[in-house]
């Protein structure tokens, strides 16, 4: 069998089709558990959580103490910390997801994984799950900062909840997208760089001035960027104290992004090969 031949489903899989969704989830959970254990017990996975904690420490301490007291309102500080938490989650997700399949291919371990009695969908879902677990770790690290920066205000707890919900939708979609890219690519490093470039593209609207953000260009850019959607929603909740109703369009946009990313992942799963694409 040549290395370029696409993945063939093992014969045993045909019999397991009848077991349906339960088996799919069970296998995905098995893969995710293995991946999380490898990631957390290795320096590579743990390091990102500590680096994120250091970044959040520096940012929250500077925000609260610089120039006697901050020049920003407490709600603005809270908004910055929550946005930073989601941003860090996306960066870490991009790095971990970039290596997930293409890294296996580079280390020549993909062939044995593909020949194991685990269906491809479960394998990729497990990989995505493991990457999302990385985000959950970043969120757990961020939680004390969000609570301490928001201490005394009425929005500290809602900020925590919305960061979790919006961050999980945004990071989950991004994880599925990058794992899909990783399935098609040959080099894990290339996918990681591509993922970081996509993240920078998504975060670019934040560099636009207030006036430009309200122009047609800024409006379209914000509408297309999932990270901008998450930030706009956090802004509405934390700074403008808006209700859940106002967040629904942003949440729907993020859910749409996540759904499209899953469709792309399913497409990439069908084209996965031992050698990878370009």
């Amino acid at each position, binding site marked *: 069998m040549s290395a370029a031949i696409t993945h063939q489903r093992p014969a045993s899989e045909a019999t397991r089709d009848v077991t349906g969704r339960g088996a799919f989830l069970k296998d995905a959970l098995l893969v995710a558990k293995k991946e999380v254990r490898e990631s957390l017990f290795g320096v590579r996975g743990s390091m990102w959580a500590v680096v994120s904690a250091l970044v959040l420490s520096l940012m929250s301490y500077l925000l609260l103490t610089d120039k006697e*007291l901050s020049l920003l309102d407490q709600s603005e500080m809270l908004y910055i910390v929550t946005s930073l938490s989601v941003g860090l989650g996306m960066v870490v997700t991009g790095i971990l997801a970039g290596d997930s399949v293409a890294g296996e291919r580079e280390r020549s371990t993909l062939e044995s994984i593909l020949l194991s009695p685990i269906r491809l969908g479960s394998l990729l879902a497990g990989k995505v799950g493991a990457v999302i677990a990385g985000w959950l770790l970043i969120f757990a*690290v961020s939680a004390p900062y969000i609570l301490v920066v928001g201490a005394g205000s009425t929005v500290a707890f809602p900020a925590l909840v919305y960061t979790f919900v919006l961050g999980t939708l945004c990071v989950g979609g991004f994880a599925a997208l990058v794992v899909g890219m990783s399935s098609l690519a040959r080099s894990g490093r290339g996918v990681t760089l591509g993922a970081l470039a996509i993240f920078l593209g998504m975060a670019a609207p934040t560099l636009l001035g207030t006036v430009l953000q309200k122009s047609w260009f800024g409006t379209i850019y914000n509408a297309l960027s999932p990270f901008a959607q998450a930030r706009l929603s956090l802004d509405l909740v934390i700074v403008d104290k808006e209700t859940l109703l106002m967040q629904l369009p942003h949440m729907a946009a993020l859910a749409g992004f996540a759904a499209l990313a899953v469709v792309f992942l399913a497409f990439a799963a069908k084209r996965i090969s031992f050698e990878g694409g370009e």
Partner: protein
Amino acid sequence: MNIPKRITVLIAALAFAIFSVAGPAFAQSSVQGSSHALIATPGNSGTPLKLDTSKATLSGTAGQYVKLPARVTNTSNAPVKDVVAYVSLVDVTRGQQAPVDLEDWSAHRAVTIPALAPGQSKDVGWSLRLVKGGDYVVYANAIAGGSSRASVGQEIPLSVKAQKNLNPGGVLPVAIGVPIVAGAALFGPVALRQRRLD
């Protein structure tokens, strides 16, 4: 070149050098002086509005809020519409003289009064969050709809005492503790596993 000509050229060069160094500073101070003169005189002439403030001075510590109450009165015989009242704040601390962005002081919002009958007064007010130590001058302004001249209230000196707070809201234990706990919780098992393997 003879000696008188050389002296003339030297004096001209010196004068040019002195002017080029001191000129901009002189020009700046004259501009500051003239703007100060404008602020010092509450401007009600030509406007139907009058602004009164009950406070003569304001003071506080960074982090506190101070209230600036003001009363807008229509002194004309005709009603005025769409009055906008707002605050101006100038940092007069030596070496830091500059207008202050009121958004940082949470007092950037204007108060709007839909209409004021002749002789009618309306109380307005702002809550300023003191964010930086120093000496300031704060004053209220009001402008009627369609008018090109604003009414300026009296200058109120504002003194803000700086406050050094190393642990606002208990951030210090979190900022130091979380990276240490995260590092220990995540690297600890890695180190233990490594030791077992060795």
